[in-house]
């Protein structure tokens, strides 16, 4: 039984173990591995069990490793080994850990995007209005993909040091030609209320939109 199975359901324990093994394969020191477990556990471990799990892992990897990462001292890591999408100011901390990615192929996939958004909130203890804003923002961006630029994806990531949840929603559609007008609230939508993007910007702490003829990428972040 792995140390993770003491705290997690078999599926989540396996997911976390896989991510750690991947990291170990890439040549991580015990300290790096522990940092990885700390950051990654946010996706898999309920908040009340996380501390105990990290402590157990620390005992295994080396009790001399300090319990929490010094701020800014983290290297850039990711679960899948794919680099975290670089979205200008949004990834300034460079400490993101990739979480789940939800593919948006049709409208029904929005439910999953919202579900994952809700789980992320639970994992970092975001509740009430703050959680509602985050889930609604994800829903708006994912809906735009489903409606105008299918297929696309919603990639969640977590910055444990900067205490932020980030979401990058990207597609390979034809872009938003009048993005400035849309964000200025000057755009009149024929397909909806035209409040999805302006509204989303008001719901989040960080918002960055890149669009062009080959697709659109919108990155948001909320503090917790």
């Amino acid at each position: 039984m792995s140390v993770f199975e003491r705290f997690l359901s078999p599926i989540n324990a396996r997911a976390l173990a896989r991510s750690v093994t991947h990291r170990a394969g890439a040549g991580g020191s015990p300290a790096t591995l522990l940092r990885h477990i700390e950051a990654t556990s946010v996706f898999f471990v309920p908040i009340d069990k996380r501390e105990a799990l990290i402590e157990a892992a620390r005992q295994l990897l080396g009790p001399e490793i300090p319990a929490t990462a010094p701020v800014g001292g983290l290297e850039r890591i990711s679960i899948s080994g794919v680099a975290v999408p670089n979205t200008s100011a949004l990834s300034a901390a460079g400490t993101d850990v990739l979480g789940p990615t939800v593919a948006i192929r049709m409208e029904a996939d929005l439910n999953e995007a919202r579900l994952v958004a809700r789980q992320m909130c639970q994992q970092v203890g975001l509740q009430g209005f703050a959680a509602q804003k985050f889930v609604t923002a994800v829903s708006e961006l994912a809906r735009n993909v489903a409606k105008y630029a299918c297929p696309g994806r919603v990639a969640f990531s977590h910055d444990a040091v900067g205490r932020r949840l980030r979401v990058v929603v990207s597609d390979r559609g034809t872009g938003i030609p009048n993005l400035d007008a849309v964000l200025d609230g000057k755009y009149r939508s024929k397909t909806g209320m035209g409040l999805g993007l302006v509204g989303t910007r008001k719901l989040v702490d960080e918002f960055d939109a890149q669009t062009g003829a080959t697709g659109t990428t919108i990155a948001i972040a909320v503090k917790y």
Partner: protein
Amino acid sequence: MDHANRIPIIRLWDLLLVPVQGDVDDSQAEGLVSDVLARVQRDGCAGLLIDLSGVWTLDSHLCSVMVRLSRAAALMGAQTIVSGMRPEIAMTIQTMGISLGGIQTVALLEDALEALGVRSDRAKGRDDALITELILGEQEEDEA
């Protein structure tokens, strides 16, 4: 649409009560619009009560579906009242600048019923007890 996924529509006198719950997907929302309008027409309902107390999130799309539904129902003679919107949801849609296009919203389902002319005798009894309590102070329960 899958029958199990349909949002229930409950008849109450000449009103329709729609308790919306959980995460509503687009096909459920579309199904709701056509089901409700068909019922309003068939039964000649005077009012539509949409209770949102169990809803997880309300985005701009779902809001526009509700506005569309209420406008169509109004054309058919039924007034729409929305009740039970949780404060964090109300604050979220307000932050986004979404308006519910003039749909009347009230806090509780009871308020919605009252606005449509339904008043409970039991509620009245409770109000009387409250007034008595305010005037006389809290009454001791009679010992058995």
